[in-house]
């Protein structure tokens, strides 16, 4: 992990958060829900700190106006959604790698981030669809030949079980499409400061009030996450063993209720604080965005590249 030079190493080390996580005779004990929640929250916080670091790295995409970045990302996502050939999607994926390279995003991190989580799941979901008994199609590789159709209860299998050509291309298409879409979304968010990105949403004619709520939400998510971490750490430091399921369930629902109640009273206090600072109910968003020449060049560039991919996709369909 070379990319987190600014986060102290002891914060990054994967350690069990308590005595519960120890190994017993070589078998790693499942971590309890307390540790899991605390770790999950720590992961969210770590993620956002790391993203802010990358957003400040001064690469190519980082220097583009967030609004322009949002619009061009949406355009490329649209292209990804409509093309229908695997080579086009491969080309688009290579293009996202280029963008990552020029934006000083560590390539290994970028590839791992995209392909480890979502498309892995997608791949599992799509896997059965390549077989001819799930989706009929022209056989590509024959697996089993029963010689006659097989019926097991209500399940009917054809005489020959095969991987179909349609199934394979269809599966490849959907996995690549998800992969490219996720890559574009990841690129957009790791090269922008989150607060700026939320402000930039105004280009999609999103009313000011929504943007204001979004900004405030983003800020208070971190506060609530800290509240939950404190609550769970306090609970953990007071408990021995895992506790009964009933006990745990009661603790969690009381915890959720408690956080909800806190959030509500906090909103009242924030409201009072806003009033005392002169808030009249009119939403105002401070924005310092300025479109520069490079942003306009970038729009044209992305448009031309998008058309290039669309054209290539059409030619493949001939």
């Amino acid at each position: 992990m070379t990319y987190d030079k600014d986060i102290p190493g002891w914060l990054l080390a994967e350690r069990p958060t308590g005595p519960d996580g120890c190994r017993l005779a070589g078998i790693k004990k499942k971590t309890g829900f307390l540790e899991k929640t605390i770790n999950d929250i720590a992961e969210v916080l770590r993620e956002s700190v790391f993203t802010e670091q990358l957003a400040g790295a001064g690469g190519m995409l980082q220097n583009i106006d967030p609004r322009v970045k949002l619009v061009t990302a949406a355009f490329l996502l649209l292209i990804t959604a409509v093309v229908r050939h695997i080579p086009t999607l491969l080309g688009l994926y290579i293009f996202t790698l280029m963008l990552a390279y020029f934006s000083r995003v560590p390539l290994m991190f970028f590839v791992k981030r995209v392909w480890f989580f979502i498309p892995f799941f997608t791949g599992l979901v799509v896997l059965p669809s390549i077989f001819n008994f799930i989706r009929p199609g022209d056989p590509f590789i024959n697996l089993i030949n029963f010689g006659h159709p097989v019926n097991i209860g209500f399940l009917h299998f054809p005489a020959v079980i095969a991987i179909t050509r349609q199934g394979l291309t269809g599966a490849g298409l959907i996995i690549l499409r998800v992969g490219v879409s996720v890559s574009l979304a990841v690129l957009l968010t790791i090269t922008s400061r989150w607060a700026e990105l939320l402000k930039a949403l105004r280009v999609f004619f999103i009313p000011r009030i929504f943007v204001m709520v979004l900004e405030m939400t983003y800020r208070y998510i971190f506060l609530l996450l800290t509240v939950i971490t404190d609550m769970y750490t306090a609970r953990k430091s007071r408990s021995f063993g895992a506790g009964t399921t009933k006990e745990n369930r009661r603790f969690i629902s009381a915890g959720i209720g408690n956080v909800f109640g806190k959030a509500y009273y906090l909103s009242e206090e924030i409201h009072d604080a806003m009033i005392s600072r002169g808030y009249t109910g009119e939403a105002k968003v401070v924005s310092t965005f300025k479109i520069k020449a490079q942003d306009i060049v970038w729009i044209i560039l992305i448009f031309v590249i998008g058309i290039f991919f669309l054209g290539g996709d059409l030619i493949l369909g001939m």
Partner: protein
Amino acid sequence: MHIPDGFLSPQTWGTLGLGMIPVWVASAVKTAKSLKIKQVPLLSLGAAFAFVIMMFNIPLPNGTTLHPVGGALVAIILGPWAAVIGITIALVIQALFFGDGGLLALGANCFNMAFVMPFTAYYVYRLISGRSGITSPRRWIGAALGGYISLNMAALLTAVELGIQPLLAHTADGRALYFPYSLAQTVPAISIAHILVGGVVEGIVTGMVVLYFQKANQPMLSLYPPGSRPGEAGPLGGLSLKKVWVAIAALIILSPLGALATGTAWGEWSAEELSKMVGYVPEGIAKARGSMLNVIPDYAIPGWDKTLFQSATGYIVSAVAGLALIFIVVFLFNKFQVKGERSSDIR
């Protein structure tokens, strides 16, 4: 239940996204009227809560954990309109920053989880709790059933949206362009999991949190409808159903439009349309390919069909050339940008 980009065809996410617009507008108007100046802080904190509730892992008997969606709880406490905005914002943040659900699929995800789910939960809760007092068991039972039913509704809708994809978009030879499974496959696969596990967890959590409020924080249960005391509000809490019906009617009108759009879906054009649209481009490419093949002498790889090899080479060479061109252009842009950046002030 968060649908990623690439699973839905453009006509599906387009229709659902358009359908969400009147719902969002109605919810903004509704909350502005009922919450007035408190709108921004209350909705912000509601949205922040809707986001963090997914952090609560519920231990399951088999040692794994599951997190609640929380849409039902937010709807029951803050009302369905505030829940629409709160959950929408939580979904936006999840999609943008955590890759949970696609950006283009946001409309579809909002439709399932930020519109249908809170409204179902709220009305089930009101129907069962009725005019009962704040400490009545009907309240938590209503909340639990609201959580269970609403999550299953959202799951069913997700399954239907995914299941209609093979009907909407496939090539002539039966190749799926988006999600490959049919309704008969998606509905049981997704619904059973939610009927047996997901919905149960959601129901238990929603019911138990309301039970907690009954014991420890009763004012939270009379926040919505605003200004009401327990026993005063009618079974529907004085909410006008009209807006809901308008939204549903708009969706019904919009959905055939989405179905009609299949006829002109990407790549579904006839050959004439295609040649009209791109005209000369294929010719130029064909020419380029021809000259390229004159340069490259006859290679013969055993087992490779000659024409397939030729056309494949043509494609690969032009694709690599195209990508190289893009690389150079982006590289030049980057160089130019760095120079420009140095001379300009820091933003």
